[in-house]
């Protein structure tokens, strides 16, 4: 069993709190992504797991062993660094073999494992070369090969793809995911790229200002963001946020959006009583709305301001009241600027948030999710 347990981790740099009382469990063989904007503490958290930079308080437990005060070499981890940290004075072979040599692996076994790792990364023909003779993508492969050659059950990755160009990143993303699931290692992966996080992670931990805001499967994080920040950070375009007003509607409540009314789901009724007559944020994904070109009683009419034809989708920009809304439609949905269209908001796709702090109304507490 190789799970990583972080308990109440705190790390400060001077007055700046990089990790603010974070607790986290990474399951065995899980691919966990730490996602957040720069400065949110994701790399610091990863380094705390690696043993590079000691925590001010809290514990790190790997595989049932408290490693909080152990140096990196005694933690049974390997790591891929953002700038690869390939040793320039060693050949590719020696780079990949570095960890094995330090463990005094017997020569035949060492050669075999280096060659296996190199083969998995398709660099077996370059073993005698020096890193300076290789491209960025190839260096990236050396770094990954070095990390998997030691066969440690945990691999930590610190934005490993951020220095590659867009096409290569796409390629490596798929390759890394296949490779790591094949190896069955536990992976903690730091990135600020939400698409990377969505596509690779078994679970995503969205971080901001040293705290984990949400920890869930990618689709859950995408569909049910716990706050305005998470909804806005994940997804291109980001989630739409509109200002609606809660009104009494017979026994229940409805949310007024322009001259249109949304019907919140029944389980939200209780939470909405506190918001009677007040303004709430209505969040909806650009592709979650159903646009039509003819009037419909349960749809709101908007005028198209901008049409962006992106190939896979047409991205429309319109206004509802004072709010701008982005609508993603199929490329077959032909409209021109100024046209009127009607948008239907499917009940289960709409999220209601507190406009003050951006938190979802009746959000499940984070403690419950983490437990």
């Amino acid at each position, binding site marked *: 069993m190789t799970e990583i347990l972080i308990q109440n981790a705190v790390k400060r740099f001077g007055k700046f709190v990089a990790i603010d009382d974070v607790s986290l469990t990474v399951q065995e063989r899980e691919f966990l992504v730490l996602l957040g904007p720069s400065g949110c503490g994701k790399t610091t958290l990863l380094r705390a797991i*690696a*043993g*590079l930079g000691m925590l001010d308080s809290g514990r790190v437990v790997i595989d049932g062993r408290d490693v909080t005060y152990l*140096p*990196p*070499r005694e933690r049974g*981890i*390997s*790591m891929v*660094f*953002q*700038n690869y*940290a390939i*040793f*320039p*004075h060693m050949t590719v072979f020696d780079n990949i073999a*570095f*960890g094995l040599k*330090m*463990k005094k692996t017997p020569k035949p076994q060492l050669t075999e494992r280096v060659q296996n790792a190199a083969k998995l990364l398709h660099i077996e023909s370059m073993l005698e070369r020096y890193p300076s003779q290789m491209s960025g993508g190839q260096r990236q492969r050396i770094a990954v090969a*070095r990390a998997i050659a*030691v066969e440690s059950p945990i691999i930590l990755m610190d934005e490993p793809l951020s220095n590659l160009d867009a096409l290569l990143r796409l390629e490596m993303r798929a390759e890394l995911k296949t490779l790591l699931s094949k190896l069955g290692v536990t992976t903690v992966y730091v990135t600020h790229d939400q698409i990377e996080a969505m596509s690779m992670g078994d679970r995503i931990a969205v971080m901001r200002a040293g705290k984990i805001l949400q920890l869930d499967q990618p689709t859950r994080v995408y569909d049910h963001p716990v706050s305005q920040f998470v909804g806005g950070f994940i997804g291109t375009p980001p989630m739409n946020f509109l200002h609606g007003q809660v009104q009494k509607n017979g026994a229940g409540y409805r949310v007024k959006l322009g001259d249109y009314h949304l019907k919140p789901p029944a389980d939200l009724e209780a939470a909405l009583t506190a918001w009677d007559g007040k303004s709430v944020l209505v969040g909806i994904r650009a592709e979650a709305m159903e646009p039509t070109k003819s009037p419909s009683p349960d749809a709101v009419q908007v005028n198209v301001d901008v049409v962006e034809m992106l190939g896979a989708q047409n991205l429309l920009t319109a206004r509802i009241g004072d709010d701008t809304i982005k609508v993603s439609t199929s490329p077959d949905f032909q409209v021109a600027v100024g046209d009127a269209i009607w948008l239907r908001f499917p009940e289960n796709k709409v999220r209601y948030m507190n406009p003050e702090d951006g938190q979802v109304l009746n959000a499940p507490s984070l403690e419950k999710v983490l437990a």
Partner: protein
Amino acid sequence: MSTEALPNIPAVSPKEPMWDAQRRRALIGVRLRRAGVYAVAITIAVWVLLPIWLIATMAFSTPQDVRAFPKALFPNPISLDSINFFLNADGIIRATGNSIFVALLAVVLSTLLAVPAGYAIARYMFPGRDAVRLVMLSVRAFPIVVLAVPLAVIFLQLGLFDQPFTLALMHTALTLPTTVLVISSVFASVPFEFEEAAQVFGCTPLQAFARVVLPLALPGIAASAILTFVLSWNEVFAAILLTLSNRTLPAHILYNLDKSSDPFKFAAAFVMLVPSLIFIFFIRRYLFNMWGQINK
């Protein structure tokens, strides 16, 4: 830059007089600037090379040619008489031996001290780090005289006077500030991530230093060692002050200068010059690296 290429570029209309004049002025400006740079570079090169050339040709001329005027551009006939005479002169071999001993010892001592010190300054934040750096630089600002006289007194009191070993200590003290700062900048240019990677893959901090950082910093350390060697090899003042019977080569030559003939002086100058030239030739790449290019 050729004017013929211009009609092929329709966007720049050559017919418009405004354009033409502007363009010509710009071209003249570029050429003038380039000519200026070359003029300065050539002047500096000649300034440095002319004396070296003079010394080299004179050292290999016959004594008659040395005294002749005007001097020939090339020694004709080439003669090793002056060099031979110099090398066989009384005390020269011994002084050369002293010089080499002092320089090598200074290199060893200053490198052994500067590598840990430089590493600490490059890698660790500790209270007074900037102060340490500043104080070291300011030591460098003192004239040798200020340092040499009190040190000579101390060495006299300790009974260490007139020994090559003592002079090596003095030269170490003189070069150490530079060496520490140079080596710390070399270490600073080795990304810390390399060390972290080494530690993740099984190294203790010391092993990470020995296996990853040191090999990468070695060229820079070698360059600074050679710099120390050349400095010690050329240093005269402290050498004269601190030694009497065990003079180093420059001290010995300087001491005998007024009693020597011109061919002897030229030969001495040449012998003094050669090691420095050879070393500079080998380290020039690292010197350039040190001032800017080592970070990639």
